C-alpha cells in the first residue's frame, strides 16, 4: 500500500490577505479585494481592475536581503508563502532537535515542487537602456552590454528561483521540479509532491505555486484575447463578462502519515488524489462540453479510489469567463449527474492568480473542510440558467462529506483536479 499523504503546514498570500486565516476571513465575510490597479496609471485603459497585493514593495516579505536582487516579484511571493508553510509545519524546529546525520537524512528525504506561471516582461525591460544606447545596432548592443545590464540578469529571471532559494534557505535536498504550465502549475506541484511521497521517493515535500502577472503588457494581452472583464469577476453569474488578474502564492507542506506521526503534529487534512488532462485544441481554445475537466475529475477520483457520490464539496476554477465557466459546469454535470455536491469558487475575492490559483484554492478548501462549511459566492446575483442546476449560492452551504474536490484550468486546454479529505476522518 502507498502511504497516506497529509498536509502539515500551509502558507498563502494574495490581494485578500497575507495568511490563510486572513484570506479565509475575507472570503467568509464576502469582502472582495479586487480594485483599480495602483501600480501604473490606468487612465484610458480598457480594463483597470485586478487583485493586487497592497503595498508597493514585496521585498519586505522576504527577510534575506541578499536574495532581493536575485529574484523577481513573483518569486518573492513564492518564497514568502513557502517560508510560512514551513514555519507553520514546525518542520525546522523538529529538524534542529535531531543529530546532524539524522538531520542530513531528513534533508535528503524532503522534496520541493514549485509551479510558476511565466516570465515577467518587466524584467526583460531591464534591457531598455541598452537598447536606447544601441539605437538598433547589435554591434553596439554587444559591446555596451556589460556596462549597462545587471550581471545577475539571468539569475533574476530564472523560472526555478523559488525552488533554488527555498532549497538554500532551508537546506532541503530531496526530489524536486519546477512546473511551468500556466495556471495549472501550482496544482501540478501538489500532484507531483503527493505522488513522490506515495511512491516512497521522499518522506516530506513542500509544494508551492506563485505568480505575479499584473503588468501593463500582460494585462493588455489578456484583454486583447478577450479574457478580462471591464467591470468585475462574477463566477457562474448570468452577467459574468470575463476574468481579472490576481497575484499571489500558496504552499502546502506534505508528509507521509508516518513522517507526520514521528513529529506529533497537527495535520490540516489529507491529499488523496489528483488528475490531469488536456484538450489538445490549441493554446486558448476550450471545448464546450467540458471534456477536459470531466476527464481530470474522473482520473482524480480514480486515483483517490472514490466514487463521485463521496465528494462533499467542489471548489470550481470559476474564472468568470463565459466559456470557461460554462464548460466547467458541463464537466461537473457530466461527472456528478443529478447529484452534484455544493459548489463554490474563490476568484471573486482576489482575482485569478494564474499559477498560484489551484494551490491557493487548495489551502482554502482545507480550511473549509476544517470548518465543515462551503463558503458562498457573494457576488452571485443570478446563476446563469444555461449552466443547469448547479448548487452554487451566495450563501454558505454545508458540505455533504469531508471530501473536497479542487478544479483548476489553464492555457493549452489543461485541467487538473485535486482531492482532499478533512483531517478529522483520520481518527475514525
Amino acid at each position, binding site marked *: 500500500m*502507498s502511504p497516506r499523504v497529509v498536509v502539515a503546514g500551509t502558507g498563502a498570500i494574495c490581494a485578500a490577505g497575507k495568511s490563510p486565516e486572513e484570506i479565509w476571513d475575507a472570503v467568509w465575510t464576502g469582502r472582495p479585494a479586487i480594485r483599480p490597479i495602483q501600480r501604473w496609471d490606468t487612465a*484610458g485603459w480598457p480594463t483597470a481592475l485586478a487583485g493586487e497585493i497592497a503595498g508597493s514593495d514585496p521585498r519586505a516579505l522576504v527577510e534575506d536581503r541578499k536574495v532581493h536582487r536575485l529574484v523577481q516579484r513573483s518569486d518573492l511571493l513564492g518564497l514568502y508563502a513557502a517560508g510560512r508553510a514551513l514555519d507553520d509545519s514546525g518542520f525546522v524546529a523538529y529538524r534542529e532537535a535531531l543529530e546532524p546525520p539524522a538531520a542530513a537524512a531528513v534533508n*535528503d528525504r524532503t522534496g*520541493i515542487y514549485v509551479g510558476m*506561471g511565466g*516570465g515577467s*516582461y518587466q524584467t*526583460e*525591460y531591464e534591457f*531598455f537602456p541598452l*537598447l*536606447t544606447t544601441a539605437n*538598433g545596432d*547589435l554591434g*553596439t*548592443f*554587444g*559591446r555596451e*552590454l*556589460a556596462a549597462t545590464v545587471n*550581471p*545577475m*540578469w539571468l*539569475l533574476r*529571471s*530564472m*523560472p*526555478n*528561483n523559488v*525552488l*533554488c532559494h527555498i*532549497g*538554500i534557505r532551508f*537546506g*532541503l*535536498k530531496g*526530489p*524536486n*521540479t*519546477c*512546473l*511551468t*504550465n*500556466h495556471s495549472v*502549475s501550482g496544482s*501540478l506541484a501538489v500532484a507531483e509532491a503527493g505522488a513522490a511521497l506515495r511512491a*516512497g*521517493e521522499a518522506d516530506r515535500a513542500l509544494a508551492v505555486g506563485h505568480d505575479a502577472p499584473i503588468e*501593463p*503588457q500582460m494585462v493588455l*494581452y489578456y484583454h*486583447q484575447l478577450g479574457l478580462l472583464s471591464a467591470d468585475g469577476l462574477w463566477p457562474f453569474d448570468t452577467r459574468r463578462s470575463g476574468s481579472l488578474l490576481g497575484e499571489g502564492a500558496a504552499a502546502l507542506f506534505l508528509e507521509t502519515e508516518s513522517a507526520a506521526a514521528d513529529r506529533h503534529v497537527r495535520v490540516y487534512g489529507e491529499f488523496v488524489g489528483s488528475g*490531469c488532462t*488536456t484538450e*489538445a485544441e*490549441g*493554446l486558448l481554445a476550450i471545448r464546450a462540453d467540458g471534456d477536459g475537466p470531466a476527464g481530470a475529475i474522473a482520473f482524480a477520483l480514480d486515483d483517490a479510489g472514490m466514487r463521485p457520490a463521496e465528494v462533499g464539496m467542489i471548489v470550481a476554477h470559476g474564472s468568470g469567463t463565459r466559456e470557461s465557466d460554462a464548460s466547467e459546469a458541463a464537466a461537473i454535470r457530466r461527472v456528478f449527474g443529478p447529484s452534484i455536491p455544493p459548489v463554490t469558487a474563490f476568484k471573486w475575492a482576489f482575482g485569478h492568480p494564474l499559477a498560484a490559483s489551484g494551490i491557493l484554492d487548495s489551502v482554502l478548501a482545507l480550511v473549509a473542510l476544517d470548518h465543515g462549511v462551503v463558503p458562498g459566492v457573494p457576488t452571485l446575483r443570478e446563476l446563469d440558467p444555461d449552466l443547469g442546476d448547479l448548487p452554487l449560492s451566495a450563501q454558505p452551504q454545508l458540505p455533504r462529506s469531508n471530501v473536497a474536490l479542487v478544479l483548476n484550468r*489553464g492555457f*493549452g*486546454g489543461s485541467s487538473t483536479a485535486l482531492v482532499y479529505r478533512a483531517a478529522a476522518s483520520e481518527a475514525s
Partner: protein
Amino acid sequence: MTGSPRRVAITGLGLVTPLGNDVPTTWHALLAGRSGVAPITHFDASGFPVRIAAEVKKLDPRHVIEDRKLLELADPSHVLGLIAAEEALRDAGIRPESSDATRWACVVGSGKVGLGYRELAEVHRHCAPDGDFHPDRLLTDGFAMDHRAFWRSQTCAGLALLLHRFGIRGYATSVHTACASGSQAIGTAMKLIRRGTADYVLAGGFDSMVNPIGLSSFCLLGALSTDNETPERASRPFDATRNGFVLGEGAGLLVLEGWEAARRRGARIYAELAGDGNSLSSYRITDSHPSGDGPIQAMRQALAAAGVRPEEVDYLNAHGTSTLMNDRSECAAVRAVFGSHAGRIGVSSTKSLMGHLIAGAGAVEAAVCALAIHHGVLPVNANLAAPDPECDLDFVRGQARMRRVRVAISNSFGFGGSNSCLALRNPDQVER
C-alpha cells in the same frame, strides 16, 4: 512502494541538434567527432565578447510542418521540439489515436522564454525610446498587442503546440529547472507510466537561447568560453585548459511506453528507462558543492530506482559543461558513488561537440545514451588533450569506443541546484 513498478521502454527517438536535424545525422556526427560549434550566424554577434555557438543548421521547418499557423505561434525552440517530436513518433511507429489519447501524456523541459529580441526591441522603440518605460504608450503599440508574440512568450506554449499537433489528451506539463529540465522531464515521464497515470509519454526537452538576449544573459555571467578563434575546440569538458561552456540549441524527444505493451506490438526497444534520481544541491545558485554533494544523491537514487549495481554501469554521459566548478564536482561525485568501479566506466560529455543545449541538453543526452546502448558504441569526449588532473575518470578520448553497454547513466545539473540522473538498461539485460 507498491509491488514491482511497471517497466518502461524507450521506443522512439527524435533529435534536432547542432550536429544534425535528425537522429541518424546527429549520431554519425557524434561518432565521427565532428563539432557543431561555429561562428554565430543567427544574428550579428560581432560586438559580443562571445561570437560562437552551437547552432542548428539549415533547418526548414516547412518541410516537416505544413501548418503555417502553427509555426507562427512557435518560438524558435518550439519549432525544434515539434520537428524532433515528429521524428520520435514516426520512429516509434505509434501515435495517439482518439481511442487512447487520454492515455498519452507529454512532459517536456522547455526553455526560459519571454519576449524575443525583435519583440522587445519593438516595445522599446514604441514605449521606451529614452530607456524609460511608458506603459500608456502600449495602448497604441500594435506590435505589443500582437497575441502571437504573447503566445510565443508563454512557458507552456511549446507544450501546448505539441499537444495540439499530436492530439495528446492525458497528463501534460512542461518543467523548467534550467540545464536539468530535459532530464527531469524524462524522469517525470517515466514515473507517470510507473504509477499508472499514462501508458505512453512523449517526453524530452527543447531550447534555443542563441539570440541576442540569451547570449547576453550568459555573457553577463561570464559562463561562456571566449575562444572565438577556435570554435571547434572551445567546448572541452574535463580538459585542464577549459574556460567555459558553449551555448547551443536543440531538441530531443523520446517516446516512452510500458514494456509489456511495447513487446506485444513488436516495437524496437532502444533501452529500458530504468531509474531516475532527482536531488537539490541547495548550495549555491550556479555551482554544486566541490565534494559532489547533490549529484551524489541523484546518481545513487537513479541506481537504486533502477535496481542496478554500480559495477553494471558501462557508460556515463556526463553533464560535463566545460566549466571548472562543474567538471570537478561531477568527477568527485562519480568517484564517491562508484568507488573503485569509477575508473571502469567509459565517460564522455557530448557537449564537447554539440555545446550546451540548456533545457534541451538532458533530453538529447538521454537519447544519446539510448543510442550508445543500441549500437554498442560510446561517443567521444572531444577536445580532451590534457585532462584536468582533478578529473581522473576513463574518458572516451580521441575517437568513439566500441563497447557493449549494460547500463548507461546520464547526468544533468541545473542552475538553481536541481540534479537529475537517468539510468538506462540494455534490453538484453532485462530478465523476462
